[in-house]
């Protein structure tokens, strides 16, 4: 029944558009009071959604049935964001940062979520990727696109170097080593003169594509979008790509093996799984994602310093994964978005930020360790 399907698709898109407009309005609000009003409203909607069985089942069923329409609609709306925010480079900037952290969170998810390995060195791979690509760009004029690969690979290499000795040790030793490693990298970046020392590396050249420099405003369809939009579309593609990779890995043998290691390491070993190798693989992939995120960050801001890669950044990414949902790729992206946007909206509470992160982690682990969006159960078709 084509007309019926079209009708349902229209309803679906209308619902999506409605919430999208709400989201855009939320982003544009400034006063703390209105922000809280919005948040209460969203929470209220969420609660009602849970309670209202019929509506919930109807909506989720609709989404599942018309997956492609829903997805396409969602993507289309995201693509229009820079147009909606064109008067405010600040808002587009927040979206770009949310995207960068989404990539970091997706990377960490492989270790923390899929394999249950606690890695507090995310900031280190983030920083190594950023510094590597920045130094190459500034001194050797390596292009950004090549830098993405190189930055990711160098970070991954460090992941390998760190992973090999650590994987043989007990879990909490490993966490200690990752904390120590993160601190070491920070100190070294701060003290080596070739990394610019505490002043970091300035004047990192922006990427350019087909002659269009990312530092220039983007003209599309007759609109002049602030230059942050270039990065917005770039990060959109990168997050999409990372999501795709993460999703495919999760549903592959590798993902299954990681989960098996998480469930019972000894049993996994008995099955002939080389636990050490898979853990190292997770570490390297996590580091690669971190390096990619770091490369984007360094070329975007154009200036990096060791402060950007302190221990607290690792903690923030861990919080994002735990809040969003361990081993749920959509969940961690939501976690990243939430924890990038909300601190900006609540600038008045900047002083309490770290405390709130700690409280979030402890409460989530105590009451809802699966996160906001629990990992979907693996269904085995008979």
């Amino acid at each position, binding site marked *: 029944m084509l007309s019926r399907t079209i009708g349902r698709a229209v309803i679906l898109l209308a619902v999506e558009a409605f919430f999208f407009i709400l989201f855009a309005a939320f982003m544009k609000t400034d006063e703390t009071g209105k922000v809280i009003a919005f948040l209460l409203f969203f929470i209220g909607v969420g609660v009602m959604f849970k309670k209202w069985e019929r509506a919930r089942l109807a909506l989720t069923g609709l989404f599942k049935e018309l997956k492609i329409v829903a997805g396409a609609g969602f993507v289309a709306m995201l693509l229009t964001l820079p147009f909606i925010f064109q008067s405010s480079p600040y808002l587009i900037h927040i979206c770009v940062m949310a995207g960068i952290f989404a990539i970091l969170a997706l990377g960490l998810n492989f270790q*923390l979520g899929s394999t*249950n*390995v*606690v890695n*507090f060195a995310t900031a280190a791979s983030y920083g190594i990727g950023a510094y590597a690509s920045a130094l190459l760009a500034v001194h050797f004029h390596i292009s950004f696109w090549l830098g993405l690969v190189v930055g990711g690979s160098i970070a991954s290499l460090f992941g390998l170097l760190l992973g090999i*000795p*650590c994987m*043989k*040790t*007990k*879990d*909490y*030793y490993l*966490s*200690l*080593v990752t*904390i*120590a*490693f993160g*601190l*070491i990298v920070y*100190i*070294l970046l*701060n*003290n080596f003169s070739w990394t610019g*020392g505490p002043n970091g590396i300035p004047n990192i050249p922006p990427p350019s594509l087909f002659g269009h420099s990312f530092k220039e405003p983007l003209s599309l369809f007759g609109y002049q979008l602030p230059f942050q939009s270039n990065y917005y579309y770039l990060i959109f593609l990168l997050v999409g790509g990372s999501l795709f990779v993460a999703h495919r890995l999760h549903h592959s043998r590798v993902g299954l093996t990681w989960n098996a290691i*998480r469930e019972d390491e*000894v049993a996994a070993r008995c099955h002939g799984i080389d636990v050490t190798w898979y853990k190292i693989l997770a570490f390297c992939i996590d580091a690669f994602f971190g390096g990619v995120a770091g490369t984007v960050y360094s070329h975007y801001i154009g200036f990096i310093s060791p402060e950007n890669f302190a*221990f607290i950044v690792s*903690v923030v990414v*861990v*919080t994002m994964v*735990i809040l969003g949902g361990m081993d749920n790729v959509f969940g961690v992206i939501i976690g990243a978005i939430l924890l990038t946007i909300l601190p900006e909206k609540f600038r008045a509470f900047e*002083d*309490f930020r*770290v*405390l709130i*992160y*700690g*409280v979030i*982690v*402890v409460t989530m*682990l*105590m009451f809802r*360790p699966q996160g906001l969006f629990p990992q979907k159960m693996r269904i085995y078709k008979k």
Partner: protein
Amino acid sequence: MRSEGAENDSLGRRSGVAEIFQQLINALLLGCTYTLIAIGFNLFFGALNVVHFSHGDVCILGAFMTLILYGLAKLLGLVTFIPGFLFVPLLIIVAMILTGLIGTFFERVVIRPFRYAPLLMVLVATVALGMVVRETVRLSFPHGSNPQIFPRILPQTSFQLGGVLIRFDSLIIFGTTIFLISMMFLIIKRTRIGAAIRAVSQDTEAAAMMGINIDRTVAVTFLIGSALGAIAGILIGAYNNIIRFDMGLMGGVKGFSAAVVGGLGNVYGAIIGGLILGLVETFAAAFIPGGTPYTDVFAFLVVIFFLIFKPSGILGEKVYEKV
């Protein structure tokens, strides 16, 4: 940044042996500050197999407790009631009790729920708990982000021995460290609660079947460990004359490292581990050109080295994973 060698001509004289001895003493004292925290980690990890990453922060919390009590006592005019030489020990004892109780509270609320859960949970939870403690301390004190002055409760005098300057506060710190280690040894080996702790660590189920109250044993362990940790924090504060809210992070990491290097499960491991870290850092600062900003890096590299090649530490027993 570099540390450059001295132009040793007519101006400088290096008093060689005395200086080395002086640096050894510096190393020893620095090592003691790590050992004091490591004792607690040894107890929690080694004896009870309980992950408690926030122990460093609890130690520093003990020091902050003392600050609060000191300020309160001054405010309430108690200083006039209590004779001078009793004031400081009383302050310390009250701080110890309070910190011990807080430690037990943390165990009850944050650690016990995860007793039978995957290790990941309690690990991340205690790291986050440490963060919460640090931030709460920072937000509760005016200008909490900046170091707070710690009262000079130790004697500031010194004497010369050979060419070496020895201060009385250093002796007190060293002595207290040895005393605490011995206390720990006695508690674990000679008391009933110590026997209970050892039983629980060997085989929890069997211990329960023997009538040992697991919950109570763990709680008492946290009480003791946190109370002793308060002494650690207080001495660190007295040695440096300041305390900062985030000393617990570095202190915890280094204290845990010292415990691991020395060997978890052996009470004397904490001293060896602390000493090694203290020596590495002091000698890196004093004798390696350009080494001063990298002291932490050297210390951590040593720790990583041990974790790779001898994870049981110097004095620890080899641990076999039971299936």
